[in-house]
């Protein structure tokens, strides 16, 4: 199926605003939620001018709906994750409240990032539901539900703890699953410790602020030392307040890591899908083999396998040749069907592995690039923090030495 009419345009997507709203939920109870404004602009590639083409409001649950839909329809794709539903890895000053303005702001940025990732994915960007998400405000939910994707969803995928005894998994997927487990564990650990480090750093800086107040009060009784104390105290205040911006920047870094923490889950989802497919394939093959064997036994009259029918025959008497013929015929039909199914399952499986692996390679490159940049930007943040520190303490030292 090749589409003949497509047009290439440059599109800018942004989640530009967040707004608190109240409304009634499904149970007709009042609730407060945040809505996000999504703006789409098309950019004329000749002169770079952008024109607002669409603008609508969506809430977090609609983003979730979109993502769940994508997960079902593109099981071989590593679907970009959403920003966290609830604030985790908080250190004491950060709020864990979903309505907190800082949290809302970081979520807004995260949602924008999600849309950008989907829009730049070679496969996902073509999805119609995604397009409608950006352009059709009313009725979008109904449209999504009409696709019936929830029915298609394999409930077994959701059962995270279920294990499938797969005899011949593709080794690459097994390794990938291990990798995603490791990634998730190491990033969680890192984020947890980072939060504690942030807490401690906050403490060090803020306690210095107390010097400011005390120096100022002390300077009141000192004649020669007074000026020096007072101005040094001011620098202590500057030092203490500088940590707020520093840690806010670090929070962005933490968000970048979190995205890959959640990506690990997306990776695992693809692996599980493969596992499930492989499992179904093996079950189907097993079933086919046993049916074939039954057929053979019926035809030759030897009973090697245990079957309920065999037992009842023994107990209640032999069946008639007509009955046996009928059974063989049924089995032969089933075997035929089974062989067709096995063939298509095999094909499906191979297609899946090929497509999934292509996306995984794409993902790997993206991940390496992004994480490296994030780590470097972290180093840059530390550099800036050190520079500020040098400046403040040099100023303070001047004041002290003039006391």
């Amino acid at each position, binding site marked *: 199926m090749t*589409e003949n009419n497509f047009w*290439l*345009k*440059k*599109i800018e997507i942004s989640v530009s605003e967040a707004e608190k709203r109240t409304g009634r939920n499904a149970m007709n109870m009042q609730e407060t939620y945040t809505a996000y404004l999504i703006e789409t*602009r098309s*950019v004329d590639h000749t002169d770079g001018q952008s024109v607002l083409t669409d603008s609508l409001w969506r809430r977090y649950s609609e983003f979730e709906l979109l993502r769940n839909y994508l997960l079902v329809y593109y099981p071989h794709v590593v679907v970009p994750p959403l920003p966290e539903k609830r604030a985790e890895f908080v250190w004491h000053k950060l709020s864990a409240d979903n309505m907190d303005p800082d949290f809302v702001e970081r979520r807004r*940025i995260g949602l*924008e990032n999600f849309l*950008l*990732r989907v*829009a*730049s994915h070679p496969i996902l*960007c*073509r999805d119609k539901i995604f397009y409608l998400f950006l352009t059709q405000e009313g009725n979008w939910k109904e449209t999504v539900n009409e696709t019936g994707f929830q029915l298609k969803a394999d409930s077994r995928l959701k059962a995270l703890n279920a294990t499938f005894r797969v005899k011949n998994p593709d080794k690459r997927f097994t390794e990938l699953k291990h990798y995603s487990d*490791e990634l998730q564990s*190491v*990033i969680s*650990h*890192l984020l947890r*410790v*980072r939060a504690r*480090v942030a807490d*401690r750093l906050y*403490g060090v800086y803020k*306690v210095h602020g107390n010097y400011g107040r*005390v120096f100022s*009060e*002390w*300077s009141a*009784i000192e*004649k020669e*030392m*007074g*000026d020096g104390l*007072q*101005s*040094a105290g*001011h620098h202590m205040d*500057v030092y203490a307040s500088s940590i707020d911006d520093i840690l806010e920047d670090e929070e962005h870094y933490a*968000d970048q890591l979190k995205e890959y923490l959640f990506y690990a889950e997306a990776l695992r989802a693809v692996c599980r899908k493969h596992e499930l497919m492989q499992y179904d394939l093996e079950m189907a093959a097993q079933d086919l083999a046993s049916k074939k064997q039954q057929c053979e036994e019926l035809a030759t009259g030897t009973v090697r396998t245990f079957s309920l029918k065999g037992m009842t025959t023994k107990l209640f008497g032999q069946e008639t040749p007509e009955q046996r013929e009928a059974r063989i015929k049924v089995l032969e039909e089933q075997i035929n069907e089974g062989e067709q199914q096995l063939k298509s399952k095999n094909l499906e499986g191979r297609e899946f592995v090929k497509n999934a692996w292509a996306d995984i390679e794409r993902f790997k490159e*993206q991940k*390496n*690039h992004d994480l*490296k940049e*994030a*780590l470097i*930007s972290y*180093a840059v943040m*530390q*550099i800036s*923090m050190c*520079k500020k520190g*040098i400046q403040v303490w*040099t100023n303070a*030292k*001047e004041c002290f*030495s*003039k*006391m």
Partner: protein
Amino acid sequence: MEGERRAPRARSCGLPAGGAPAPSPGVDAPVPGRSGPPALPRAEVLDLDEDEDDLEVFSKDASLMDMNSFSPMMPTSPLSMINQVKFEDEPDLKDLFITVDEPESHVTTIETFITYRIITKTSRGEFDSSEFEVRRRYQDFLWLKGKLEEAHPTLIIPPLPEKFIVKGMVERFNDDFIETRRKALHKFLNRIADHPTLTFNEDFKVFLTAQAWELSSHKKQGPGLLSRMGQTVRAVAMSMRGVKSRPEEFMEMNNFIEIFSQKINLIDKISQRIYKEEREYSDEMKEYGPIHVLWSASEEDLVDTLKGVASCIDKCCKATEKRMSGLSEALLPVVHEYVLYSEMLMGVMKRRDQIQAELDSKVEALTYKKADTDLLTEEIGKLEDKVECANNALKADWERWKHNMQNDIKSAFTDMAEENIHYYEQGFQHENRTRGLNEQKIKSGSGSCVPAISTLPFKTSTKKHAIPFFFFF
């Protein structure tokens, strides 16, 4: 004297040459109003060009680290102290050098205690020899202090370290405690040696030179315990009355002492708290670095970057440890000594008040009782002399003390600021190196087929990213 230099002018107005960005708004803005009215207007406090020409500034040169005898950094031998620099008010050459070292534990059936070795080197004639070595325990120091207070009730006697620290102190004899105490005792004796009056005190001489048994027998002389207790009771009663008629300058002094005491106590608490927070920060960092190394084990392409970050964090950890030790060597002991000094000062004020109260009560007696006027007048005459002596002694010592306090506080905080600057400079170098190494790698790495979404959208969402968008429908 050599060693007293001005701070280089260039540093007083500029930012470090490390390419620091334009000063933050806070540097040039006037100081916002503070709670509590200062006695003098504090305008233009950041105008760093107002350099007072006659203010001698000690430059922080590493080669002169153990400059003054008050430095508790190392038990420098008395001989090396001969080359030391002195404060302005000690124009005479030092002729008494004291070190306190070698704490030793002594166990008897009754008790366990620590003694410290005290070495004295002197060229003074009144000393029988030029070198002495004795061992003293804390009790002996207490005795000395008591005697000095007795002999010079209105002089500011240096403080002794506390008997024991109540909170967090399980064992009296743990190493840190002993070392801190040793340094404080060293400072105590040297401060006495540098004091123009106390240095010639007889009990001080005995303390430095007498053998153990000589000291014990010397101690037994002098007013007994009971009479001293009696004096204390009377003193307390008297001092209550003295407060009313305190002269103006001593009212000011008392006011200063009260506020100073409050503030220095707060500073002590703040400084201890900073130490604690830095310790906890360092502990967390110790766990933070290795996680990156662990991560690098499962990432082929990020090994160098992750290991780079890990090593940076480790270096930062070490730098923090150094910063902490700087704090505990330079700032904490000084601040704590002045906390003890402030308690000391309150005692001095009380004693001065008590002496005055004695006079006042006799004067009162004179106005009411007509009997024994001659005797009373004579006594009053003597007491007036006593009061005048005491007041003058205190006034002189007060000026000296304030001057020393200023210098000590200034140098302690300057050192702390220096430590912090050094800490951040280290951090800057390490992080810069890591960034440099890794940025090279990104440039030389293979071009990715990932569309140009950098991770920066997280930072500034105002950056719009134009993406080729294919519509198929």
